[in-house]
């Protein structure tokens, strides 16, 4: 496919690997933010090709992994309400809640539909005026415009039976939470290309400056990732800490203004509890007052107690880059994709699941 397969060219991959090896003189630790980048790095064997001096650690950019247990409990509660259809992206269904997962609720008779787009949920609401339709609106900044657009459309159609359970999370506050952790050992970030397609690069300049940390906005294909790594290592070797853009075919410095306006039309920024990382101030989007009748939390008057997280899962240390999946005693034993203890083993973009499915025996034993 055009604009995909060219960026998987094996010869170009080898050229970038050679150049990265040539310029690397010191040990560096880089974190890729997005779970899609983690998946691509592990699946394509890039971790095994990089020079030993470069360590890639895998960030918190997988919405499935960071959505808190309490929010899963809220979604299960909504799904079990009479005359209610809960719509969700497919990957959220197997995430364990404190009582049950959405998949278990569905097996017990709850009307849960897996959809590709929140805009399909609006159509569903139009087709079922006698039922309440709720969309489980998770995701980073990339997904926020589509979820916001669904609310704008529902308002324009005067659909009173549509609402969203918003659990949006934001990248820059999470980066700051990781960088300000005492144990932090990250030298540079590969920022998430599709988040920046929406938000642009402006938010990252103060972060790079404050923590003297290079940030390279990077895409998802092997050549993209290797170019991003090359650019970050080049900065580190020169002692620079700039914000650079590898993903120029989609990302503009100012981002997509229409998408940002749609977000701000519907959402306001608030605190958010991240699974594994805890509460991070101003790190999420919630439906604003103007559109409060589309806020499922208010509409259904949900009061779910904050659930305890599973202490057997070390997802927080994994998403801060402090530990690799195979350093967890439960990895591949008590915790497998079929029986996940925590979310990073659920989603294919979770670091644990990516290592479980694709990592070579070598990279697992080296750790």
């Amino acid at each position, binding site marked *: *496919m*055009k*604009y*995909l397969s*060219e*960026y998987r060219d094996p010869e*170009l991959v080898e*050229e*970038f690997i050679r*150049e990265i090896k040539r310029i690397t003189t010191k040990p560096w630790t880089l974190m890729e933010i*997005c*779970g*899609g980048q983690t998946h691509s790095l592990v699946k394509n064997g890039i971790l095994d090709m990089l020079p030993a001096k470069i360590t890639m650690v895998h960030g918190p*950019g*997988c*919405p*499935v992994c960071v959505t808190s247990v309490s929010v899963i409990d809220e979604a299960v509660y909504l799904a079990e309400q009479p005359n209610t259809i809960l719509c969700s*992206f497919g*990957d959220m269904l197997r995430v364990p809640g404190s009582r049950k997962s959405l998949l278990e609720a569905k097996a017990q008779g709850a009307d849960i539909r897996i959809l*590709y*787009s*929140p*805009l*399909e949920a609006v159509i569903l609401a139009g087709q079922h005026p006698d039922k309440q339709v709720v969309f489980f609106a*998770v*995701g*980073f900044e*990339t*997904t926020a*415009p*589509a979820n916001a*657009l669904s609310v*704008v*459309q529902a308002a*324009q159609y005067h659909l009173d039976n549509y609402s969203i359970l918003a659990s949006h999370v934001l990248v820059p506050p999470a980066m700051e939470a990781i960088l300000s952790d005492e144990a932090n050992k990250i030298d540079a970030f590969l920022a*998430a290309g*599709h*988040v920046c*397609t*929406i938000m642009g690069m402006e938010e990252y300049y103060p972060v790079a400056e404050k923590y003297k940390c290079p940030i390279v906005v990077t895409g998802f294909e092997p*050549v*993209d990732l290797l*170019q991003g790594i090359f650019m970050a290592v080049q900065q580190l070797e020169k002692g620079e800490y700039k914000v650079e853009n*590898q993903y*120029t*075919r*989609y*990302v503009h410095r100012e981002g*997509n203004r*229409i*998408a940002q306006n*749609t977000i701000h039309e519907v959402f306001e920024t608030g605190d958010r509890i991240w699974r594994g990382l805890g509460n991070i101030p101003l790190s999420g989007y919630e439906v604003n007052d103007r559109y409060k009748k589309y806020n499922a939390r208010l509409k259904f008057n949900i009061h779910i107690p904050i659930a305890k997280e599973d202490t057997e899962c070390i997802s927080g240390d994994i998403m801060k880059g402090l530990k690799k999946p195979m350093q967890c005693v439960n990895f591949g034993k008590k915790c497998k994709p079929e029986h996940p203890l925590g979310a990073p083993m659920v*989603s294919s*973009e979770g670091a644990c699941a990516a290592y479980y499915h694709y990592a070579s025996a070598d990279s697992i034993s080296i750790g």
Partner: protein
Amino acid sequence: MCLAIPGKIIAITAQLDETFRTGKVSFGGIHKEVNLCMVTDAQVGDYVLVHVGVAISKVDEEEAMKVFSYLKEMGEVAELEPSDQ
């Protein structure tokens, strides 16, 4: 979950107003209806990046080619820089 895939716009299917511009987009031959309200300058024949049914960016075709000459250009720049040795 931030997966987004490039596809080619093959038809504009509805344009009621700014919020309701939709198009048919081909992803290597598989066609899907996509909301185009966030890429107002995209036209039939353009490639757009699509995420959960919404186009979020138009491909910059010139920038898309730059990665293929990046290393060569880096080498040329390095040759112009004064050497430390």
